[in-house]
């Protein structure tokens, strides 16, 4: 997917240069400016995520997300999922491993859904673009929705 993205970007840049050199240089300048603008937050968040994942291991997570953990387990799963931000290629195998080691579908659904939709560590970036209120409303709504997803999936699977 990343390769495809590079190909698209390079082709677009090539076409752009063919049409107007000045505009293309301006586009690259703008690209760099908006990247540098958000870089301090990006770097800070990377360190926070690294520290958090170093402390929270899969074994620890699976201990609290067992099938019998019920709503308590769902809440814990939602809290862990909301705070952390894990790349998907880590998150899905982790969720699959948790299921095998005894976690329930309801808890895993809460974990996966909040992991993707709710981002507490990334809030500084979101606030930079959307302001405090919109950020809090969106994350709170996504958290509530994730709990509904967990409930439905717990009943259906």
């Amino acid at each position: 997917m990343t390769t495809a993205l590079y190909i698209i970007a390079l082709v677009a840049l090539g076409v752009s240069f063919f049409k107007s050199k000045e505009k293309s240089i301006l586009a690259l300048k703008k690209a760099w400016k908006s990247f540098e603008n958000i870089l301090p937050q990006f770097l800070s968040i990377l360190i926070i995520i690294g520290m958090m994942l170093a402390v929270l291991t899969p074994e620890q997570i699976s201990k609290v997300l067992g099938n019998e953990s019920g709503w308590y387990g769902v809440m814990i799963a939602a809290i862990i999922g909301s705070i952390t931000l894990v790349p998907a290629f880590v998150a899905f195998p982790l969720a699959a491993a948790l299921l095998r080691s005894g976690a329930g579908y309801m808890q895993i659904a809460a974990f996966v859904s909040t992991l993707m939709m709710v981002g507490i560590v990334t809030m500084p970036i979101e606030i930079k673009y959307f302001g405090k209120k919109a950020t809090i409303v969106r994350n709170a709504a996504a958290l509530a929705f994730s709990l509904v997803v967990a409930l439905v999936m717990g009943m259906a699977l």
Partner: protein
Amino acid sequence: MRSKALNLVKRYRIFLLLAFLNIAILIFLPQVGVKSVQLTWSNFIEMLSVLPPIFILLGLLDVWVQRETMTKYMGEHSGLIGVLIAFLLGSAAAGPLYAAFPVAGVLLKKGSKLSNVFIMLGAWSTTKIPLLLFEASALGFKFMLLRLVMDIFGIAIIAYFTEKMLSKKEKEEIYQRALAQ
């Protein structure tokens, strides 16, 4: 020159603080410290690999796509077309959710409707096509499909709800922010 350096330190102060904290952990709790540095490093590499094309495309979009065009397809009166474009844009994306915020910024700057921008964010966070395949293989097809169907409705509900909760003035401020980026 001096004020420029000072400004740089000021902007990166939280990052510097965290870096020192991580070094302290490395010294006092070497096991946790090494693991966290490794994780940070691999995430950093992931970020560096996926961000350049996203930002190049954003720069090109900013320069070539006119405000009127964007407003027509994703603006206030874009209707179902705008919603569909927002869903597709988010679903076809690559990279973690935090990479979606700069994209959101450019869409706003060009006059896209706020709820459409939230739909793009929602789709970016959960309905990315390569992720769905991955999810199906890790957690089962039924798990993926059930979540996808609920997510499509959920994303739209969250987007409209968030927009409804904001006053006219707050929305205006969001657009002003985007223009200042």
